[in-house]
């Protein structure tokens, strides 16, 4: 306990930089309530795959032996600390390193289910290129800063892109009356709720939101799947039709 009779400590206490801080209870109450709320907005940021600091708390096991081995310049050798709000304990990857593209392509999850006809070799490079292009653009905008992301976040980008392709597959099959393909896509969207990087990086409510989309796909609720396309930025042919369906998301947000 502080010795109140020590003039030196009293003087330091009186010089507290927070002594002039004031905050009203209503603000704190709102902040407290917000901290427990699902966060679709954060998810959207993560979809872009360039979040510098994730905020998830998952088990803080030691890095797997394979993760410790450094085979690429892009590997920083610095690992996250899940307890202290980083995404997990996976390695931070330098997205501006000369071999970042090769590194990202190398961590493509081989068991990731893809729609029929997908050229996996092309897909993994496309995702890698998209991540690097966004990182370079961000770096340029910010005056040449370095850009790093954790390995798990990069794997989430693969999952996120595959997820979008399954949404597109569902919408195209539904329009064409291809019941079998639509059913396969609905099953994949259901399965996506347990994909490892999604689960590991769920900042709160994302998986629950994905579950509502999966249910919509299973129930052949086209508005729901279009809402999923809108939410996940599935643009282009067979993707979001441009009609705002935030009402659907609002109604179905858990």
């Amino acid at each position: 306990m502080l010795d109140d009779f020590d003039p030196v400590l009293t003087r330091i206490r009186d010089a507290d930089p927070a002594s002039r801080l004031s905050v009203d209870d209503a603000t704190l109450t709102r902040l407290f309530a917000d901290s427990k709320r699902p966060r679709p907005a954060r998810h959207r940021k993560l979809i872009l795959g360039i979040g510098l600091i994730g905020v998830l708390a998952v088990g803080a096991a030691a890095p797997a032996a394979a993760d410790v081995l450094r085979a690429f310049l892009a590997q920083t050798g610095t690992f996250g600390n899940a307890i202290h709000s980083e995404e997990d304990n996976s390695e931070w990857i330098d997205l501006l390193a000369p071999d970042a593209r090769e590194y990202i392509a190398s961590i493509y999850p081989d068991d990731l289910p893809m729609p029929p006809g997908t050229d996996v070799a092309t897909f993994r490079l496309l995702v890698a290129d998209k991540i690097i292009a966004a990182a370079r653009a961000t770096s340029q905008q910010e005056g040449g800063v370095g850009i790093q992301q954790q390995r798990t976040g990069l794997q989430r980008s693969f999952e996120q892109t595959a997820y979008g392709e399954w949404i597109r597959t569902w919408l195209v099959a539904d329009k064409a009356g291809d019941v079998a393909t639509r059913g396969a896509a609905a099953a994949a969207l259901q399965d996506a709720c347990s994909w490892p990087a999604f689960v590991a990086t769920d900042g709160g409510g994302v998986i629950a939101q994905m579950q509502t989309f999966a249910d919509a796909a299973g129930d052949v609720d086209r508005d729901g799947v279009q809402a999923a396309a809108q939410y996940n930025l599935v643009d282009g042919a067979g993707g979001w039709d441009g009609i705002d369906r935030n009402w659907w998301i609002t109604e179905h947000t858990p």
Partner: protein
Amino acid sequence: MTAVTELSVDEATAFDDVIRPLMKPLLAYFARRITPTEDAADCLSETLVVLWRRREVLPASEEDVRRWAYGIAKGVLANMRRGRMRHQALAGRLRDEVSASVVAPVDTDVAEALNQLGAKDRELVALIVWDGFGVAEAGAILGLKPDASRSRYSRARARLRVTLGDRQ
């Protein structure tokens, strides 16, 4: 099912009861160590999110909860600073300096006196004098053993007494 409903009503109430009173002290903790104040608010918000997500390991006693919460706050603060450092692409040495800094106290003599302490000693004093922790508790947050905390704190006080004694 939402994340909120995974917790029983009693458990959710227990979380609210012990964490809600820590909000102002935690905001003050950040305001002492980071500027602008908006960043302190962001850090508080981030800390609450992490506390909520890790609520299944909420310690049983209020004392332990407080120490646990400040341990997480310390990590959030480190991440915020690390993010800034990445952002500013500064060298490791400067990172170390900034990661150990506290916001300047309103009394410049006190600020100078504190700055003459080592980073860990300065943070130890701040945790005790401003954040209200006991010596051993503050040391635990910094990863120090109780004996080490006591000797560091004693040494820091002696140095502060000499420095500030010259300026009274």
